[in-house]
């Protein structure tokens, strides 16, 4: 099987840049959300539609990013 309908985009979640990669594989949409730099994985979601996969990935990323504390430097 081959991945299809590949897309990438950057979104801003509460001031954090997040990179989304989505593709369809074997009838399901896979979305990976990472925090761009340094690139750590935030969420990996499999869903029936692209919209659903990306919405869930963004929600999970927002939950994790909300725990990140910023210190004054």
């Amino acid at each position, binding site marked *: 099987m081959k991945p299809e309908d590949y897309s990438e985009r950057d979104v801003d979640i509460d001031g954090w840049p997040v990179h989304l990669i989505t593709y369809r594989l074997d009838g399901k949409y896979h979305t990976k959300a990472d925090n761009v730099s340094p690139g750590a994985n935030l969420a990996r979601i499999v869903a029936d539609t692209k919209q659903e996969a990306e919405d869930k990935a963004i929600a999970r990323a927002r939950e994790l990013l909300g725990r*990140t504390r910023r210190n004054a430097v």
Partner: protein
Amino acid sequence: MAQYAHPEMLVTTAWVAEHGKDPNVCVVEVDVDTKAYDEGHVPGALGWAWNTQLCDTTVRDILQKTQYEKLMRDSGITKDTTVVIYGDSNNWFAAWALWQMKVYGHKDVRLMDGGRKKWIAEGRDMETTANKATPAAQPYEASAPDLSLRAFLPQVQEAMKAGNTVMIDVRSPQEFTGEILAPPGLPETCQRGGHIPGAHSVPWGKACNDDGTFKSVEELKALYGPEGADGSRPLIAYCRIGERSSHTWFVLKYLLGYGNVKNYDGSWTEWGNLVGAPVERGAAQKAQA
């Protein structure tokens, strides 16, 4: 365009598509996200989990020699096997695996340029079946660890005092300054934020193009040279736990061909938790003229 110092350390996705199932080739996926392999991988590829198979899970350390030898044998790898490693996040943990294989002296181990991302973006074949290797007939005998590739805390402390080594902090700028203690969204794993005094900030991802492949020699020299990393002095790369810095170590060692490059895998989770260790906060320093 100049060629990488060691172009043989990279293969293209097209090469893997053509040769990935050759008898003497073993393709291995190593991801940050250890479940990505299960959702689809290069046909025939094995999957190694960085957090269980590529470290000592009792003592904080890389694989012990005997553990490494077992992993190789169980993976059907002999000393003569061409091992091609790839993974997500632009080969971040793939580089960690390659670094360990070089520490233990494997001759022919390479990265698939662009990693998992490029393979998927190109719409290449994938499979979901987890592949299990037939163990090699003979035991794998690793070399004694090559410690010229690895920096331990005392060496880093000495290098900081002496000032004759260029230390490259490859974490994000916010981690470098101390604004955050871990990559956004990940648990905090150190007590203090900042960087090793004198270190230079060159985030690891700057070495990659948008498609995940490595930048050209000219671009890499322009990236690292102004920070003092031009091969004229010893280099130590570090990050949080040593995996992002493996990626930079690979670039400096094999793409630019600098001779004395070490990966400090203790990295910030070691330094940032030490009682009394000097810490510098704030913006990056500029290279000494």
